[in-house]
């Protein structure tokens, strides 16, 4: 299977993640959707590294760094979400509209 197949899977997974981020009301599921988008980008980086290789293996190194940044992001994100849920008693993002008033 060539580069295009992997890039199509990556594009579909990114679209699914974008849909989940915009369409779901649960704050934790929005974070999961962000993780899906990170993974879609990682898949395209690894596919580019395999099919358009260079000496420094930049694609694989970038994928590992994206994983580290994603781990940092999900740590802070979940801490924020848990802090918000503790004060607001709900995980539904459309009930966090108090700042609007």
């Amino acid at each position, binding site marked *: *299977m060539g*580069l*295009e*197949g*992997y*890039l*199509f899977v990556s*594009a*579909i*997974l*990114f*679209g*699914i*993640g*974008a*849909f*989940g981020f*915009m*369409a*779901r*009301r*649960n704050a*934790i*599921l929005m974070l*999961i*959707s962000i*993780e*899906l988008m990170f*993974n879609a980008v*990682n*898949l395209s980086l*690894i*596919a580019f*590294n*395999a*099919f*358009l*290789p260079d000496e*420094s*293996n*930049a694609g*694989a*190194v970038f*994928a*590992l*760094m994206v*994983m*580290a*940044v*994603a781990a*940092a*992001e999900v*740590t*802070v994100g*979940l*801490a924020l979400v*848990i*802090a918000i849920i503790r004060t607001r008693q709900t*995980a539904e993002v*459309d009930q966090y509209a108090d700042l609007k008033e």
Partner: protein
Amino acid sequence: MSARILSREPSTLDISSVLFFLLAFGVVGAGIAVVTLRNIIHSAVAMMICFGSLAGMYALLGAPIVAAAQVLIYLGAISVLILFAIMLTQAGDANLPAPFHRQVPIAAVVALAIIGLVGWAVIQTDWDVVPQAVGAAVDAIADAVFTTFALPFELISMLILVAIIGAIFLARRPEEDERAN
């Protein structure tokens, strides 16, 4: 000679293509399950299936160290962290609220537009690919991380330190500082 090549033509579906389609089905199917299932714990389990299939894809692309990191970081650490967060915050699966926001149609249109645009760009581009996937050897990646990409590597260690401190600060209960004072 040509007859032998012709007779071999129909069996072009080799084992790596079969594995690719199985893993692609796992990634896309589990991804759709993540965003559509009503119970968020089921979504988290579907997310783990999606991450595991992606680890298989990385191994298929000849990047075993990235596949191992995927299993360790995503399947091992991030999934468990998310499951912990769900179990700390969800009241149970009784009276589940409606999972979708009212902007579902717009979200679907935008997601399909993203898929369509990226897919169109992939088809339009004339990729200068090598015919067979080239694996990323572990020692080559290690050399790259600690020579060419040494500065980003150090910056990421700093970022993770900042994230740890931030997470501890955010997750601390406010009453505890008042008691400490």
